[in-house]
Each structure stands twice: as C-alpha cells, then as structure tokens.
C-alpha cells in the first residue's frame, strides 16, 4: 500500500475515534455520561495505524488495553453502539454496563477488558500470548509501564520470543505528573536491555509503519510519543496549545480528509442520538 492511501486509511479510523470522543466530551459536559471517563482523543493515531497494519497482514491480534481504550476498541472494529451503551451504563453495553469507560471488552475483536490495576494487562497479555501463540498487542501508558510487574513480564516475553507487540502510549503524564519527575530512563532502552527491539518514535502513522515490519515475528516494544488532548479523566483540557496529530494529518492530507471527517462526524452524531433515545 502506498503511503498516501495508507495515511488515508489510518485517518478514516482516527476520524471515527476522534468524532466519537468529541461526542463523549459533549455528553460528559451535559452530564449525560456520569461515570469516570477516559477519552483517547489525541492518541488515536496509534491504534488506528496498528489496526490498518494488522488488516494488511490479515491478522486479528489479541488486544490488551487499559483505561483510555476507546480508540483501541473503535480502531479494531468494535461495535460503536455497544460502546455508547457501555458509557451510558446499559446492560447492552460491550461490558454489560459494568466495565464502564476504563474496562472495555469485546470478544468479537479479541479485546480483553481491564481490571483497573495499572499495567496488569502487561503480564496478562504475555500469558495469553504464550498460551495461544497468537499475535498479541499490549497497550500501556507511560505511567503503567513503570509498574514492576510490567518489567518482569517484558523480560519473560523476550526470553520466550513471543509474537507480541508492546505499545507504550507515551503522553508524558501520569495524571499531571510529568515523566521526568518520575524516572530518568526510557522504555525503549529497557526493552533493549531485555534483548528486544525497542524504538522511541512519535505517533506519525508512517513512523509507526516503518518500525513495524517485524511485528509478531518477535517481541517488539514501541514507545510512541503522543499527546492527550483532554484531562486524565473527564472533559477538561490541559492546554489549548497541545499538538494535535488529528488536525495535523487532516491538514496534511487535505480536502479528502476534511470530507472524510465531515461524513464520519455526521454518522457518529446519528448513532449517538439514536442510542441516547434509550435514556
């Protein structure tokens, strides 16, 4: 696939995620969504790119996310209506209204829910990969990657040469505590010390693609620098000056991207409205 069409494919998924999250923000502000909600706006190009790469490889990996996982679910084809229902606390939600925003689960797309212990998806994903030998992606934040058991799991995954991809969605923040306050090391270096391939890149889809040639052939860790547009939880903003990959890509692709965005926005709005009628 040529870079341009790849970029557009990724953008379509990112637009789905972004417009979905904008509706979430709207409904949070209106207090229609009442549960703690962790939107992934700003970070959606990571899962969007990986989902396109997996589609190209005709792979349906096991997915282990944690909170801020709406984009993983949507990028990999999770049912939108079920996610809305989940955020509204309905039994028809993808996690029966129990899991909420932070614990999205979908059997259809091989996505496993999260229990709330930060980083527990690291070892759990490693175990699932080991037992099934299926390609597996583990999504961690830069903070949860610091959990000691994540590091233990990384080392063992390397020893067992598992077909696994560790993604660190590095937004530099643990709630509001910056990475430099918490540590003086980088996850890619940790991966290398565990004799895995480790890369630090940004969330440009082409950069992700470039380092993903060998994914699922051996354990790889990608520390992807990205930006969280909204607060850790809820609808507030950290800053209006935060770099927004979505706007950047839309501008870079041009009119086609604006048209895609507009169409998807309409569709998403319609779906939300219909689901909200259940209230």
């Amino acid at each position, binding site marked *: 696939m040529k870079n341009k069409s790849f970029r557009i494919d990724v953008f379509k998924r990112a637009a789905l995620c972004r417009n979905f999250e904008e509706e979430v923000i709207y409904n949070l502000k209106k207090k229609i969504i009442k549960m703690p909600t962790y939107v992934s706006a700003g970070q959606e190009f990571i899962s969007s790119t990986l989902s396109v790469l997996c589609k190209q490889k005709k792979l349906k990996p096991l997915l282990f996310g944690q909170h801020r996982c709406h984009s993983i679910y949507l990028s990999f084809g999770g049912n939108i209506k079920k996610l809305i229902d989940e955020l509204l606390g309905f039994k028809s939600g993808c996690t029966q209204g129990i899991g909420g925003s932070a614990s999205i689960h979908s059997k259809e797309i091989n996505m496993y829910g999260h229990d709330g212990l930060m980083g527990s998806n690291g*070892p759990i994903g490693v175990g699932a990969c080991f037992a099934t030998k299926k390609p597996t992606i583990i999504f961690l934040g830069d903070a949860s990657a610091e959990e000691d058991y994540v590091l233990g799991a990384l080392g*063992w995954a390397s020893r067992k040469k598992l077909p696994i991809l560790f993604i660190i969605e590095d937004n530099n923040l643990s709630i509001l505590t910056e990475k430099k306050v918490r540590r003086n090391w980088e996850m890619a270096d940790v991966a290398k010390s565990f004799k895995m391939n480790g890369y630090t890149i940004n969330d440009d889809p082409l950069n992700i693609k470039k380092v993903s040639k060998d994914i699922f052939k051996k354990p790889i860790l990608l520390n992807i620098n990205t930006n969280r547009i909204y607060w850790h939880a809820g609808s507030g903003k950290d800053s209006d000056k935060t770099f927004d990959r979505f706007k950047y890509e839309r501008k870079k692709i041009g009119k086609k991207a604006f048209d895609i965005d507009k169409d998807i926005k309409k569709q998403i709005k319609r779906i939300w409205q219909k689901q909200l009628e259940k209230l």
Partner: protein
Amino acid sequence: MAKTVRETIKEITHKHLKQKKSLILGQCLSAIGWVGGTVPQLKEKDGITELSMADVANGGIVVGAGLSNRRPIYVIRYQGFSWFNAPIILNYACKSKEIWKVPCPIFIRGIAMEGFIGPVAGSSHHSIYYRMPGIKIMSPMTPKEYFLSYKNFMKDNDVYYISEHRGSYDNKSELKDYLDKNLEIIIFCISITRFEAKKARDFLLKKGIKVGIANILWIKPFKIKRSWIEALKNSKSGGIILDDDYTTGVASDMAYKLMKYSKKKIDVMGLKDRSAGFSKKTDNLPPQAEEIIKIIFKKVKLKK
C-alpha cells in the same frame, strides 16, 4: 498399593499435561525434587513452564494463560509468596467471568510448610484469597480429596485455590469425620491441623472425653454438612476450629457461620498473632495436639 498424596498430585499433573495438553507454570519446577516430587519430570514441550522470579508478573502471566482456557496449573512454592502472586489473579481471573463473561479457570497450588522458615514461607495463607468473589478454595489432605479437588476444577470454570501442605504429601489414608450424638465438643479442622486433631481426639477419648471431628475440605464455599450442625446442637461444649492460618480470616468467618446455624459457641485456634521466626523458639506453628488438648480440657472444666 495405596497412593500417597504426592503420587496422586504427580499422576494428576501428568495426565493434565499429556492428555489435556495443558500447562503447569511456576518457579523452579524442574529444580531438584520437582516440587517435593509432585511434578512429573517432563519437558517444556510437554507444558512444564519455568517462570522467572518476578512473582507479581508471574501471577499475571498465569491469568493470561487461564484466559486461553487451557486450564493451567500454577504452583506457588510457599503460600506466603501469595502476597506477591495473588493481586492479578484475584483482581482479574476471579472477576473475569462475572464482568466480561470470559472464564479464567486456573488451578493454583499454594504449598504450605512449617519448621523455622520465618514470617513469609511458613504456614497457610488461604485467608488472603478468601475475601474475593469468584474463587473456590479447597484444602485436600488425602489422595481421594486431592483427586476430588481436581475433578471439581475440571468440571467448573472458576479459579481454584488449593491450599496444600507438604506435611500431607506422604499421607495415604483418608480422614473420616467422627460424629456422634453425645459429644463433648467437635473439632472443625483445616489443612495440616487435621492430623493433630486426630491425635488430640485419640488422647481425649482415653481420658473419657468424647470429641468429634469434622474435616473441612471446602473452605470456599464453606460447605457445612447437616451432620456437623446436628452434632454441634447435641454437643455439650460446642466446637473449636483449627487452622494453619491466622485466626482473623477464614477461621473466624467459619466460626460465625457455624454459630449462626447451631447456636453453640465456637472457638478458634490458629497461628498466634505474631510473626514467625527462623528458630524453634521463635516459630509460629499451627495448633499442636498438646495445645488442643489443653484448650479442650479447659473448656470442659469450665462447663462443669
């Protein structure tokens, strides 16, 4: 010839790996002794999975394996290591069926032992697991009980915590309940205390004190037999629970339940409320026959 508990575990594990194509995971499985002779000397390709020394991560890795429905066996070589091993098991595997409709059956072998081995490695720690929904806990001390525990696990899809004790590995005998109508007191015993309870009973019988024994195999759910309640109701001095864990967990909860159904007083005996040391003098052992006898004498005397 009757099999020991050790041989039973080994045979079950062998079949589980060879016939069910499952996994056994743990630390130092293939080290000298193969976990007290309970693990068959097979290879990695047969499912013997050596984990690193990262206990917390290992608990999570096993949960991942459990999600694949291969029904892994997980060996925790000292029950006290559960303080590190249990968090992800309890918070994910035990809740997975309820929250995500994905069962995560794991057969956890928590191994207890005693003998001057300090504050973590000694005794049973099943109370750590007890409070979490979605887990079943059994403490088999005989070959038949061990087989029954495994059989239950295989027809179920919950997490099973098997509270083992190395002191039972050589045992070939089945342990029976001794219940009668006119008992002085009934001992409800868990894990290794069951052997001491029998010694205490035999001694007290010779002294003319009729003591009953109720063997607790199912810790969670705590399966109370009707015969236990009947015997309790007819007893003169109620009952006493013996545990190889601290008394503030499983034992006290069981006592409450038994009291509720029988309206008789139930006491608890377990580890003393202090840390165990590494010498005979500083150790913290489960109730020994002499202590049990002493307590029962005291209770009987008070009653009279």
